[in-house]
């Protein structure tokens, strides 16, 4: 799959690397005992450590270290048993310490990889450069007052994992697939909830362009504030086009930080941030190096769940579902578990089909996700059983399914109470067949020349029986009557 931009002077390709900030799932902050809960009143979840009061000492939250290592293992990455927290110095009102405690030269996680699944069934491996732990900053509120900014430090000090990819991404679509896959892995691991609306997963994109065939990288710009899956692709498309136009008009791309404006769909320069781009990192003297004890990494490795890639392979091998369907089913752990419950002891392809097309279809229509499904996996399984043992026809199965979705009732009860059982008894179907044949002498003539018309007769009989007759039985009776 290739993505190029046609300029006036030739064809261009794009080079993208992503920096993702993922909020660690933890009760308390990285260096203080204040809560990480979202939506608390301003400054309610703030300890004096988070407020940067003089003399306070940060103490590492053991669980956050664990979460970072767990994520590193999920990304098949090298775990560094000796890592160092450093101070990244800059001034901003939402950063009360005057520095962010982050990791720089010695991050806790090194090189790893992430496999993205293309819609055409192919896979691409995107390199992970590193993952490090750092503190989040507070929140500035600009719209409450004309001449003042309000600061809420509830987020200040919450643990983030910054996950940096190699510049291996070549299309806007790959960037979106990377984000989706990363989010999926984080959610499987239970290390980040992936909620982009609440800002728990944020993305900055490093974008550059070069003429097709060139191997050197162009000058890149860092696009900040790309905070939904949809915007990732749009921001990259816009920025790449901007750079091509700039170069082709004889100008040069300046390495800078740019902000994505979702409303206008464009990026603009954040010159203010550039001046201070000298962070003067140094090891934080308040904190010891993070040295992982013997056996620590191995113990976490043993506790990892089956991850999406492995689950996908297993679904393809054990259930015979297509790679595409397997990819859809494993995106969320909950979906995968639901599918397996339905597929257990049944036709797995049929189960996949019903989960993906019927269930997801109705859920999407109602704007719901799987946790809100009115149909349990057991009930969907029982519906398939009724379909497969001939109790109901395929057409009725969909009707029953729709009623199940509306009422949450069991399929057996719906079939029983509404009299939807399939009729296979010849003597009760024959009268309908006779009736249809008698009423349509013209079609009978046509049938003599073209036996395919039998389908039309079957349709008429099905209609008369309210869809309850078994189509195979109907076809048999009709054939006998018409030919005889």
């Amino acid at each position, binding site marked *: 799959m290739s993505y190029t931009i046609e300029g006036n002077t030739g064809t261009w390709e794009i080079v993208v690397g992503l920096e993702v900030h993922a909020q660690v799932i933890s009760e308390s902050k990285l260096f203080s005992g204040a809560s990480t809960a979202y939506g608390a009143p301003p400054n309610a979840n703030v300890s004096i450590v988070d407020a940067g009061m003089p003399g306070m000492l940060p103490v590492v939250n053991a669980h956050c270290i664990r979460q970072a290592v767990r994520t590193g293992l999920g990304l098949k990455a090298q775990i560094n048993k000796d890592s160092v927290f450093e101070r990244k110095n800059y001034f901003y009102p939402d950063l009360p310490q005057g520095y962010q405690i982050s990791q720089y030269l010695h991050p806790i996680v090194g090189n790893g990889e992430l496999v993205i699944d293309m819609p055409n069934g192919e896979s691409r491996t995107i390199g992970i450069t590193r993952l490090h732990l750092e503190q989040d900053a507070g929140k500035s509120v600009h719209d409450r007052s004309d001449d003042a900014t309000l*600061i809420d430090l509830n987020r200040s000090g919450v643990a983030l994992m910054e996950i940096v990819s190699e510049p291996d991404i070549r299309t806007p679509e790959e960037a979106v697939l990377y984000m989706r896959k990363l989010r999926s892995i984080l959610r499987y691991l239970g290390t980040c909830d992936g909620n982009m609306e609440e800002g728990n997963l944020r993305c900055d994109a490093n974008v550059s362009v070069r003429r097709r065939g060139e191997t050197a990288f162009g000058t890149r710009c860092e696009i900040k504030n790309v905070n939904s899956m949809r915007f990732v692709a749009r921001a990259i498309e816009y920025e790449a086009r901007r750079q091509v136009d700039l170069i082709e008009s004889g100008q040069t791309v300046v390495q800078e930080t740019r902000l994505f404006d979702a409303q206008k769909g464009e990026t603009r320069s954040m010159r203010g941030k550039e001046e201070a781009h000298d962070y003067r990192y140094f090891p934080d003297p308040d904190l010891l190096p993070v040295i992982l004890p013997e056996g620590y990494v191995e113990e976490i490795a043993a506790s990892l769940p089956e991850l999406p890639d492995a689950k996908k392979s297993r679904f393809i091998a054990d259930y015979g579902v297509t790679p595409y369907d397997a990819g859809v089913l494993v995106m969320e752990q909950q979906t995968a578990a639901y599918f397996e419950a339905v597929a257990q002891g049944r036709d797995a392809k049929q189960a996949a089909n019903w989960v993906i097309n019927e269930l997801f279809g109705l859920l999407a229509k109602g704007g719901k996700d799987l946790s809100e499904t009115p149909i349990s996996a057991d009930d969907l399984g029982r519906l398939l059983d009724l379909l497969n043992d001939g109790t109901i026809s395929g057409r009725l199965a969909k009707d029953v399914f729709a009623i199940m979705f509306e009422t949450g009732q069991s399929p057996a009860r719906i079939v029983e109470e509404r009299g939807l059982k399939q009729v296979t008894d010849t003597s009760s179907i024959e009268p309908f067949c006779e009736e249809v044949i008698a009423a349509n002498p013209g079609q009978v003539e046509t049938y003599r020349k073209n036996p395919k018309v039998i389908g039309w007769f079957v349709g008429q009989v099905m209609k008369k029986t309210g869809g309850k007759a078994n189509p195979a039985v109907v076809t048999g009776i009709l054939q006998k009557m018409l030919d005889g």
Partner: protein
Amino acid sequence: MSLDRSTVARIANLARIDVPDDQQEPLARELSNLLLWVEQLREVDTDGVEPLRMIMPLPPRWREDSVTDGGHADVVTANAPAALDGFFVVPKVVE
């Protein structure tokens, strides 16, 4: 290594320290002397010597992940020059 006056001015600006023009030159000399002293330390042969990052080989001092603090926005903002509805108030930050 020595620092010139413009470097001193830049460092001062990054650290938000107001160093008057007439003090930049003397400060550059003082800081350069400090750096010279540090450079002298580099002459010591440290091949094969591990960096001493901890005086005592302490076991990791890590915290349990539990909420033990918070719920006092009033205390947190008590020393702020201005506060409103639990927020700190600062001069308008223009993006």
